[in-house]
C-alpha cells in the first residue's frame, strides 16, 4: 500500500512493514534531545526503575534556554545537568554558548533523513526540514524514552502543502509559513504530520526550510516534513559518516487534505498579538510603534536571516526609540556572521548582540519587555506574557520586516527599503 513519509518512518521505527494513520505504534527512538529542562527529565527518570539510560550515544543535551545562567537557580540546574550527564556517560552535551538545540543538532550532523527524533521542546519539528519525523514531547515521556528507548505514538494523518512560485525580494519563508498558519489556524495541523513540497520549497535554502518546519508547530503540527533532496545530502556530507535512507512519500499516498499555494504575489506577513494565527499582511499593521526589535531564535537566527537583515541595515541607524537585539542561533552562525561582515553592520547600526541561545524569546533575560511596550520579533510565539510583562505586545515577522521596522521605529514593509 502507498504510504506518506510519516507512515514510512513510523513503520520502520516500530519494526513493521507498513502502518496506517490512526494506528498506535510502539516506536524505537533514533535520537532524544533535551535542553535546560533536562533537570526535570532527570528528576522523573530517577523515579523510574532503570539505573542507566538506554543508550547514552542516542541522547543529546543542549543548554540554550537560560544561558549563561541568569539566576542562581538556573546555575544550580545547569550544574545538576552536567553532573547527571557525567554519571550517565552522555558524551553529547553542548554546554552554554554553543547555540540553540534546533540549530546545533543539524550543524553537528545528528539529524538525518528518515530518523525518528523526539525532543522536550515543541519546536523539535524543525528537524523535519531534513526529512526526519521529529516531534516534541514532555519530560515524563522523555524520562520513559531514556529508560526504554521507546515511545507510543499514534500514526498521524498527513496534510500536504504544495507551494509554488518565486518569492519577491525581502519576502521570506517566514512570510509563507505565517500566511499558511493564518489560513489553517493555531490548531489546523494539530495531531497531523505536515509535508511541504513544490518548486518554492525545492528552491529554498536549508535555513529557509528550517524556518518552515519550525514555525509549522504553531499550527499544532506533530511533524513538519520536507522531502529530502541533494541540498540535504550536500549539507550532511560534511557532517556525518553514518548511513541513512532518503525517504519519500509514494505517489498515491493518502493525504487527509492538500493545499496549493502560489507565493508569487505574497507580501510580508505579520502575526499580531496575541495569537500566532492572527496573521495580517504587513500593509495592515504598518506604522505600529515599536520599542524593541528581535532578530534571532530557532526560527530565524541563521546566517541567511542575518544576511538579509544586514542588507537592510547597512549604513543605516536603528531608531533612537528602539532597542534591537540580535541573537545568533549558534556559535557557528555567529562566526560566519562575523566573517560575512554582518555583525559589524549590526553593531554600527546600533544593535545589541547577545550570545547564541534562545535569548529573549522566553521572556527570562536579554531583553525582557515592560507593560505597554511593543516588540517586532523574528521568533515563533506571541502569546500574552511570552517575552516579559503580560501587558507587552508581540508582533512576529521575518528578519527583513524586523530590520526594516527597527530602522523606522514602527512596523514597516521591508520592500520599501529596496533601493
Amino acid at each position: 500500500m502507498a504510504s506518506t513519509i510519516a507512515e514510512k518512518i513510523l513503520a520502520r521505527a516500530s519494526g513493521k512493514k507498513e502502518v496506517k494513520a490512526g494506528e498506535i505504534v510502539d516506536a524505537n527512538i533514533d535520537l532524544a534531545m533535551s535542553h535546560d529542562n533536562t533537570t526535570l527529565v532527570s528528576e522523573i527518570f530517577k523515579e523510574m526503575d532503570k539505573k542507566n539510560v538506554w543508550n547514552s550515544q542516542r541522547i543529546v543535551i543542549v543548554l540554550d534556554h537560560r544561558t549563561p545562567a541568569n539566576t542562581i537557580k538556573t546555575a544550580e540546574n545547569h550544574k545538576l545537568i552536567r553532573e547527571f550527564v557525567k554519571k550517565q556517560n552522555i558524551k553529547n552535551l553542548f554546554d552554554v554558548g554553543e547555540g540553540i538545540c534546533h540549530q546545533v543538532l543539524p550543524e553537528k550532523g545528528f539529524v538525518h533523513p528518515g530518523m525518528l527524533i523526539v525532543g522536550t521542546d515543541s519546536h523539535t519539528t524543525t528537524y523535519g526540514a531534513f526529512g526526519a519525523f521529529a516531534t516534541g514531547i514532555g519530560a515524563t515521556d522523555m524520562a520513559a524514552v531514556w529508560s526504554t528507548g521507546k515511545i507510543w505514538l499514534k500514526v498521524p494523518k498527513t496534510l500536504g502543502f504544495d507551494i509554488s512560485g518565486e518569492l519577491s525580494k525581502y519576502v521570506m519563508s517566514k512570510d509563507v509559513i505565517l500566511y499558511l498558519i493564518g489560513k489553517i489556524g493555531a490548531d489546523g495541523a494539530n495531531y497531523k504530520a505536515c509535508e511541504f513540497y513544490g518548486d518554492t520549497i525545492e528552491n529554498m535554502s536549508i535555513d529557509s526550510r528550517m524556518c518552515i518546519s519550525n514555525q509549522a508547530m504553531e499550527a499544532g503540527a506533530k511533524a513538519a516534513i520536507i522531502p529530502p533532496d541533494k541540498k540535504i545530502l550536500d549539507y550532511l556530507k560534511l557532517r556525518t559518516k553514518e548511513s541513512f535512507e532518503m525517504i519519500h512519500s509514494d505517489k498515491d499516498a493518502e493525504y487527509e487534505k492538500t493545499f496549493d499555494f502560489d507565493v508569487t504575489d505574497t507580501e510580508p506577513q505579520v502575526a499580531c498579538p496575541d495569537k500566532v494565527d492572527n496573521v495580517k499582511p504587513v500593509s495592515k499593521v504598518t506604522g505600529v510603534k515599536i520599542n524593541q526589535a528581535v532578530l534571532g531564535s530557532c526560527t530565524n537566527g541563521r546566517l541567511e536571516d542575518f544576511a538579509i537583515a544586514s542588507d537592510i541595515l547597512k549604513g543605516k541607524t536603528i531608531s533612537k526609540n528602539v532597542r534591537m537585539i540580535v541573537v545568533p542561533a549558534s556559535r557557528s552562525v555567529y562566526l560566519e556572521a562575523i566573517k560575512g561582515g554582518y555583525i559589524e553592520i549590526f553593531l554600527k547600526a546600533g544593535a545589541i548582540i547577545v550570545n547564541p541561545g534562545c535569548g529573549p524569546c522566553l521572556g527570562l533575560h536579554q531583553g525582557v519587555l515592560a507593560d505597554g511596550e511593543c516588540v517586532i520579533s523574528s521568533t515563533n510565539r506571541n502569546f500574552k506574557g511570552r517575552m516579559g510583562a503580560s501587558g507587552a505586545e508581540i508582533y512576529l515577522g521575518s528578519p527583513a520586516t524586523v530590520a526594516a521596522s527597527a530602522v523606522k521605529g514602527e512596523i514597516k514593509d521591508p520592500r520599501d527599503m529596496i533601493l
Partner: protein
Amino acid sequence: MILKGKAIKYGNDINTDVIIPGRYLNFVKPEELALHTLENLDPDFFKTFTKGDVIVAGRNFGCGSSREQAAMCLKYAGVGAIVAKSFARIFYRNAINQGLPVIESSEAVDAIENKDELSIDFDKGLIKNVTKNLRFTMQPAPEFLQEIITAGGLVPWLHEKSHS
C-alpha cells in the same frame, strides 16, 4: 471514580505560556509551581477556585510549549479535570502522564456555563451538568491511557507494571 466541582470556563487556544509563564519553569517542585497557575490569563483564579473544580475550555487547550509544568501546575493546584473541545497534542500526553484527567467533548463544553456545578463519573463515562440537569457521554480513551490516568500518571503506571 466520581468527581464533583464547579466549572471554570475559558475560551479557545489557552496556551502553555498563560498556564505557567516561562519564568517559573526553573521550579522543579510542583507545589511551588502550582502557586502561579494561570497567572497570565486569570490573576484572580485562586479567589474563586476550590480543589476539584473543573476547567472547561474551547479548542486547542494547552497549545504551545512542551513544558510539562503546565499540566503539573494544574494538577497540583487541585484542578479535578479539564473538559475541552480539543487539546493540543503535547499537553494531552503530558496531562495523562501526570494523571490529570483530560476529556474531549464539544457538546458538553457548549452546554456548560461558568460556575455550573458538574459531576463527572469516569467509570460510566458521563459528564453531568448538575445546575442545568444535562448529561453527556464521554468518548472512552484507549484502555492503556485510561490505565495510566487511573494509576496517577506514567511513573506510577510503570511501577505497577513492573511489579505485577
